[in-house]
């Protein structure tokens, strides 16, 4: 099927009307935007179907497709920027997808500032990580399959952000879930990794069920699940139904973005190879929940209760992740907890409404760079330390891994919000915005602002702890360790991401570039009324950040780090066990589920079957002959049935005649 041929520029519509000549200039990029998704998908298909003969060059094909998609995304960005601000929302109709009775849905792409910002992030960071993975996975016998899955992920993620309806988005949404499942379990000969993969998928499915219910409610309320249709009608719907839809969407967002209470899978997901953790479980897929909430702005803005729950979920998760991050001794699990916490910030901002959208997405972009950079750094450290992830077996690596050290330092300074670095420009604004929650009145600004502020201090502590335990202090290496710098293919992507960690925030934030870009989505919003002035928030934040970093330096760089973790306080022990999230899930869901299943299996074998058998026997007056069932003398029963049938039918016919 040639999609290009069926999607001439004439079908290109913006804001529901067919675009006129104004569209002509950028039409090539837009009509071809489906290639953005198709190229990596093709890459995945070729690599999977090509078999062993593609082993030798398959990974390079895998690297090529995300770069090609990046080029297309960049062209799309330029083309979109060429339109006047009001016309930067364009729809590309692809094909009639589900014409099923009352439910009629076409497949199409929505190209607007939000989706294009995402597409650029996904393809650029994705392409860099593909390059890194060529070296990182060099020794793996299944490297080709790895690249196939990674390509499949990029395609699904692009479909997720570019889709023009909830249902098509859902295809990408579960597609990235599948990619995540396959990649977490990439080394599934380890039973723990296989279990982690399944856990991630099943927990995500719980969230996805929320998304399904949200779509059912949309169809019942609006008669459609397309973005354009739902958003156009959302204003006229009742607040009750919008709140319900919003909460169900949030459930989906919580699953995908590892937000409370569906956060339990992300830590285990670190079982995947580190490039996967960088791309999927840090930079892109896990932020899809934030995308969903921002995209669904018209619903949430009309449902304040749902918005409040979004903010609360964000605040709880940002503290949850930060607390867990302080206690973990596994470098990837600290980073995972940190990801959860940072997405909590984004979620909080997204829940604040139009005030927060631009900052949520800006933080999402800067986080994509610095967190991916740090994950790649962690991979480099593991590469040098014989795959060990134990912070307590590192120490003093700055001397032997200079590039890793410097690039990681950039990410570290960015995430703690060191003035001038990327995170400073995005996270600081979220904290400020939190202090103006609910119009700057009542308890909300203090509670949510306070949580965001406290989180900043905790972030500084645990990230500094990780940084110092890895690169500074005494060398606690095992005897057989020979740490060394990673090869160029790995360090170059790290350097590029580090540059982003340093400069991206400054380029987009204070210049106003990004808020302008996002203004069509954010729309006009009321003046902010923070309960604390901006300078006070910034000062307080910086004080807490310095305090956290200094404390971490004293405990983990200036003094000896014990090789075995001390017992610690009750809170530390709880944080090490992820605040007992698995124990709670097990007691509340898994155990009762297992008992129910066992009971039902028993009942089905004895009960239902028995009752039906008994009834049949009773009805047929054949109770005594039940044993025939097992011995196979069916004829007597069949004969009696036949006699019965003949008697009844004969009787009826006679009656008639």
């Amino acid at each position, binding site marked *: 099927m040639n999609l290009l041929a069926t999607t001439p520029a004439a079908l290109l519509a913006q804001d529901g009307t067919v675009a006129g000549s104004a569209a002509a200039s950028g039409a090539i990029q837009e009509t071809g935007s489906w290639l953005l998704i198709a190229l990596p998908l093709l890459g995945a298909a070729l690599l999977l179907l090509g078999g062993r003969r593609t082993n030798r060059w398959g990974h390079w094909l895998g690297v090529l497709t995300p770069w090609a998609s990046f080029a297309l995304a960049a062209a799309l960005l330029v083309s979109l920027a060429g339109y006047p601000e009001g016309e930067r929302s364009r729809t590309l109709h692809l094909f009639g997808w*589900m014409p099923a009775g009352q439910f009629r849905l076409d497949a199409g792409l929505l190209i607007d500032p939000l989706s294009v910002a995402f597409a650029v992030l996904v393809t650029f960071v994705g392409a860099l990580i593909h390059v890194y993975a060529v070296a990182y996975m060099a020794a793996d016998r299944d490297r080709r399959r790895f690249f196939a899955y990674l390509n499949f992920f990029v395609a699904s993620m692009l479909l997720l952000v570019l889709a023009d309806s909830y249902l098509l988005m859902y295809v990408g949404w579960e597609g990235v879930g599948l990619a995540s499942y396959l990649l977490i379990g990439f080394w599934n000969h380890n039973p723990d990794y296989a279990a982690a993969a399944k856990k991630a*998928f099943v927990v995500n499915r719980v969230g996805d069920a929320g998304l399904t219910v949200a779509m059912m409610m949309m169809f*019942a309320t609006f008669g459609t*699940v397309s973005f354009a249709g739902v958003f156009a009608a959302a204003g006229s719907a009742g607040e009750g139904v919008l709140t319900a839809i919003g909460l169900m969407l949030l459930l989906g967002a919580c699953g995908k973005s590892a937000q409370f209470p569906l956060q339990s899978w992300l830590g285990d997901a670190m079982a995947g190879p580190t490039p996967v953790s960088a791309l999927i479980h840090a930079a892109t897929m896990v932020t899809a929940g934030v995308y969903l909430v921002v995209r669904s702005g018209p619903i949430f803005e009309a449902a304040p209760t749902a918005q409040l729950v979004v903010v609360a979920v964000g605040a709880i998760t940002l503290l949850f992740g930060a607390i867990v991050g302080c206690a973990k001794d596994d470098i990837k699990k600290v980073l995972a907890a940190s990801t959860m916490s940072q997405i909590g910030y984004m979620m909080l901002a997204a829940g604040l409404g139009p005030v927060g959208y631009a900052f949520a997405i800006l933080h999402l972009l800067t986080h994509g760079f610095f967190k991916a950079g740090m994950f790649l750094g962690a991979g480099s450290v593991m590469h040098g330390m014989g795959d060990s992830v134990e912070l307590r077996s590192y120490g003093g690596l700055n001397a032997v891994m200079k590039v890793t050290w410097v690039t990681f330092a950039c990410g570290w300074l960015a995430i703690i919000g060191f003035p001038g670095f990327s995170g400073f420009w995005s996270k600081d604004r979220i904290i400020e915005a939190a202090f103006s929650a609910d119009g700057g009145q009542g308890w909300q600004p203090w509670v949510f602002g306070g949580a965001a502020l406290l989180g900043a201090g905790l972030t500084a502590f645990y990230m500094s702890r990780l940084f110092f335990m890895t690169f500074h202090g005494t060398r606690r290496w095992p005897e057989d360790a020979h740490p060394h710098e990673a090869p160029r293919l790995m360090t170059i992507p790290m350097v590029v991401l580090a540059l982003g960690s340093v400069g991206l925030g400054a380029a987009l934030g204070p210049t106003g570039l990004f808020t302008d870009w996002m203004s069509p989505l954010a729309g006009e919003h009321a003046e902010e009324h923070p309960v604390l002035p901006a300078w006070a928030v910034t000062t307080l934040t910086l004080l807490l950040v310095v305090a956290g970093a200094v404390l971490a330096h004293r405990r983990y760089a200036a003094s000896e780090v014990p090789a075995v973790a001390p017992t610690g306080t009750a809170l530390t022990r709880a944080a090490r066990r992820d605040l007992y999230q698995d124990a709670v899930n097990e007691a509340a869901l898994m155990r009762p589920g297992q008992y129910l299943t066992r009971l039902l299996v028993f009942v089905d074998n004895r009960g239902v079957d028995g009752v039906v058998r008994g009834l049949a026997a009773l009805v047929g007056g054949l109770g005594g002959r039940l044993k025939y069932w097992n011995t196979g003398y069916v004829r007597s029963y069949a004969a009696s049935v036949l006699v019965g049938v003949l008697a009844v039918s004969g009787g009826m016919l006679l009656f008639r005649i």
Partner: protein
Amino acid sequence: MDLPWLTGIGALPLLGALAVRALPASRSRAVALLSSLVTLGAVVALVVRFDTTRAGDYQFEERYSWIPSFGISYALGVDGVGLTMIVLSAVLVPLCVLAAWREVEGARARNYLALILVLETFMVGVFAARDVFLFYVLFEAMLIPVYFLIGVYGGPHRRYAAVKFLIYSLLGGLVMLVAVIALYVEGPGGSGGFLTSRLTGLTFGSEVTERLLFFGFFFAFAVKAPMWPVHTWLPDAAAEAPPSVAVLLVGVLDKVGTFGMLTLCLPLFPDATKWAAPGIAVLAVVSVLYGALLAIGQSDLMRLIAYTSISHFGFIVLGIFALTSTSTTGSVLYMVNHGLSTAALFLVAGMLMARRGSQRIEDYGGVQRGTPLLAGAFLLAGLATLALPGMSTFVSEILVLVGTFPRYPAAAVAATVGVVLAALYILLTYQRMCTGPVREHTSGWRDMSFREAVIVAPLIAALVGLGVYPKPVLDVVVPGTDRARTQVQTWDPQPEVPAPQQPGGSR
């Protein structure tokens, strides 16, 4: 006069079966495969000749008086729905013949393959029957080949399973027969008194009569489909049947149940349908959840797949009796997709079982490491079963759910739990069988052979292809589904705040 297309297509596999019996056993496989492929070719020709602009009308109609004294006719005809089911049968039979290549050895294969072909004849007939009595006869006749296929060629408890299958089916059939005859009595009678077209739109003597007749038909279909609580024959039958027979049993034969609900229960008994629909929706949701939970608890691979099917039949029945244009369309599509996905799952399971010689899940482990293609096919079939978006099963499942919600919100939301459980029963099974370290009994296997690839590839291609572009099938089934549904005179609930029409973009 037009050629009797449907009779011809029905006769082809029967001729094949005779040829298989007549020729030496060494040729059985080739002849059976050839015959099923010729049938498939004829069905393709039928599809080409089918007028899709009138997909809601019955086409290729044939009608002869059969037993004039009782008004019984031999009447055939298909609309888009029946055509789709015939295509499904014709696609699956050659794959099953290929799969049976090694299931049964030597001379025993001859009768086995002949029985499969005979079964195909009955399947084509039952989906094309336009006379209620003829439908009943074929409905019951299907039991005979299946009884022997399970009872002779099945596993260690084959006789028990085959008898149980027969008893349940006969019981259902008996109740239906009474209803069939009573319906004739209620109808216009005379010559052609059993024609479906003449029995549609009857005014019944009393409400109770219509409800009793409805129950007679529905009971037989619920046993066949099967629904909770009359489902217990299916796990036994599927566990004992050879995989290719399980495919035809669950993939096609059981669909006669849901097909009958849609094409007979709805048009013949519209008022009773409306009256019974809420109760049936409850039973359907119970089936969805019960089947899924039971699947999680199984230790036998074939029983597990059988229970997943009970869960899926729950979705199909729910969609039919939610009686909205979206949900019933979703159900018909679900029948096709479930046939494809279950076939893939049963057949790949059969390939694994042929290597390991066991149906017990715990006897496997680490299959992915040694035989990645086989494990990959198993995973894909599993993903289709859990209705992963991008696979055709997703399209039908979402249509059923989205279509049911406006009518029965609680039922739709409860059924969504089944979607979550599906992820659990599939991925848990994959985890137990295919991941982990390679074990002694699962090492040194040969990965997928060419023959096996030929079996799996078309199924996967269809599942993915119809997932991305389901429109061709939807366009064919929607009109027929609408006709069946509008007999009941139900209208779609209207959205509270309809979205404005969006010219150009998607709606």
